[in-house]
């Protein structure tokens, strides 16, 4: 065994980290766990807990237990000025001169970085440099959003002279729902993006479409760009290898959608298509169960309910009933049972050619028929191609969608064991650890061999 002076030390800037239940948290959790398992000493900088509990209000306590105990989580301070509503907590300056205080705050933030999480990035840099002085970090990985994490990684990399990698878990300067730049040309965001990409040791994207879009804009960094798709986490999803029993003709089919519903998704098209499909005898009594939160924030459910054909209390209105049922959120650690109880999974997604969506990997892992409800040129196609139980209309026309819903139902009733096996084999290639391995190798190749020698087992 080769002696090693110490484990390579990674600083991972992941604002959304358990117990947050933000959609990007699973990639961050898996990345930290993967590096810890591969022998890295991982320190994660995450959002303060009071921000997650009091401001965002979307947490999943059970997720905390799934973080590798070797991972150190530190929560640098975030200035909650813009989210502070309690007058008792406000200073004299803010209480007596609210307009001046707000303008001063906004001016101070804007001159540092064009994003509201800049104070967290600032405290992250200070904290990182303090920790680096006592024990050196070997590399920094930052995941966005928030993209202030990229700026922090750039600053830490520059001041501590260590390589940094930025992970575009989400899109920054590209509007995924309009397929066009998200900021006007003179916006300071462009200067920042050029700066952080320019000095990054590696730039990571979730799909090829996003990589190509950025490579076209920053050709000098194209050779440092790589794709790490989202994948699925076997430790969070119990996948049964048992063959699925055919469904009795008299038994109603159970369709499911798992995930957070958002305003950008083609919800009306899905509801209308399901209503039409239910008229087919194969779908008699079928229900489309929606498991998940309605929107990301405390009050975002209200505008979504009527779009689902439900009343303000989330109950079914008999006159507009399209067979949709709200089942509420499911902890990530319990989604396996939802997949097991579903006959068909509905892949409802917003956006177009640059959107992959994280949940499609779990959908595939379940080995169930998947019916697509999204724009036809979505980037998720590149992972769904080859999945033998994928049913897609290549259109958002409710009639055509209804047809694929029926076809998926037929496949569920047949439950062909060979097809199911082929589906699971396809999904196995998207296990998160498999997908993260190239990133870990890349980081290992970047760190200074003089300070850290290869760990061997």
């Amino acid at each position, binding site marked *: 065994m080769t002696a090693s002076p110490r484990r390579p030390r990674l600083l991972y800037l992941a604002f959304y980290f358990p117990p947050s239940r933000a959609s990007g948290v699973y990639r961050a959790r898996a990345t930290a766990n993967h590096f810890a398992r591969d022998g890295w000493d991982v320190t994660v900088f995450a959002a303060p807990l009071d921000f997650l509990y009091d401001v965002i209000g979307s947490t999943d306590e059970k997720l905390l237990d799934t973080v590798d105990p070797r991972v150190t989580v530190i929560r640098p301070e975030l200035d909650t000025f813009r989210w502070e509503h309690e007058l008792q907590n406000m200073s004299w300056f803010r209480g*007596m001169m609210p307009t001046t205080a707000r303008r001063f705050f906004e001016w101070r933030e804007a001159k540092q970085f064009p994003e509201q999480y800049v104070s967290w990035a600032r405290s992250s840099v200070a904290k990182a440099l303090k920790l680096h002085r006592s024990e050196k970090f070997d590399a920094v990985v930052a995941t966005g959003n928030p993209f202030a994490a990229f700026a922090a990684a750039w600053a830490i990399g520059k001041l501590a002279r260590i390589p940094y990698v930025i992970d575009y878990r989400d899109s920054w300067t590209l509007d995924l729902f309009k397929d066009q730049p998200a900021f006007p040309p003179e916006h300071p965001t462009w200067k920042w993006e050029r700066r952080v990409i320019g000095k990054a040791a590696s730039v990571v994207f979730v799909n090829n479409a996003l990589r190509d879009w950025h490579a076209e804009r920053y050709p000098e960094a194209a050779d440092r760009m790589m794709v790490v798709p989202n994948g699925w986490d076997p430790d969070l999803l119990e996948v049964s290898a048992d063959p699925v029993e055919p469904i009795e003709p008299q038994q109603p089919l159970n369709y499911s959608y798992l995930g957070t519903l958002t305003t950008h998704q083609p919800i009306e098209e899905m509801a209308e298509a399901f209503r039409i499909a239910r008229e087919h005898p194969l779908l008699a009594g079928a229900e489309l169960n929606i498991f998940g939160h309605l929107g990301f924030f405390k009050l975002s459910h209200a505008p979504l309910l009527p779009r689902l054909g439900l009343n303000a209390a989330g109950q079914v209105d008999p006159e507009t009933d399209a067979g949709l049922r709200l089942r509420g959120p499911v902890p990530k650690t319990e989604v396996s049972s939802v997949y097991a109880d579903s006959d068909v999974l509905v892949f409802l997604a917003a956006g177009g050619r640059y959107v992959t969506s994280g949940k499609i990997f779990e959908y595939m892992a379940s080995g169930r028929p998947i019916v697509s409800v999204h724009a036809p040129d979505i980037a998720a196609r590149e992972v769904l191609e080859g999945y033998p139980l994928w049913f897609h209309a290549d259109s958002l026309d409710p009639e055509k969608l209804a047809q694929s819903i029926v076809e998926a139902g037929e496949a569920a009733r047949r439950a062909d064991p060979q097809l199911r096996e082929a589906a699971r084999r396809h999904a196995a290639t998207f296990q998160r650890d498999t997908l993260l391995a190239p990133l870990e190798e890349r980081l290992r190749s970047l760190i200074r061999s003089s300070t850290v020698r290869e760990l061997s087992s």
Partner: protein
Amino acid sequence: MSTPAGPATKPRVVVIAMSYKPAWRVRSYVRDLAEAGVDVDLLLPESKSTQDVELDPRIRVHYVFDVEASELPIRRIEHGLLFSVPAKAFGKARSLTVGRPALKKVDAGLALSRRLQSRMSKGIHRKMFWPVFKAARPVILSRRAQGRAAELDLAGADRIVAADQPAIPLAWRLARRYPGVRATTALDRKPYVS
């Protein structure tokens, strides 16, 4: 004006809105609370600019002033110096010149000066006085409205809500005086509206 508060068991919210007209979101907030059975006291800056605002009759509305412009000394002084005194002076002067052919040119000069003065006064009011007053107004109101607010039995309220930016200094002062009452800028219906 004020009517006695309802039964003690009902939740009670004091909403402070110091913009000249309460915004739609404020009106909808107090209406939703009233419909949910909450005892709502709404404190507005003046009755003059808000008398045509339609509010749920269950909401008890209180005012700091009848007419802010005439009850605040700084506004009275500013109006006097820029508008009333020059108007009176020019009026008196022109009463001596109007209709006298010998003073025709003097009268024309006075009329022109009056127009110039009027334009200048409006400019000073809009460009100089108003921006400064607008910035200082929340603080001035926070002093002037404390007596009115004290009549609202704030110690017995569940929460004090500063519904707009100019209401913050007054609500902030009240938050200090009544630390046991939750004081917030959030128009949060959740605790009261199902």
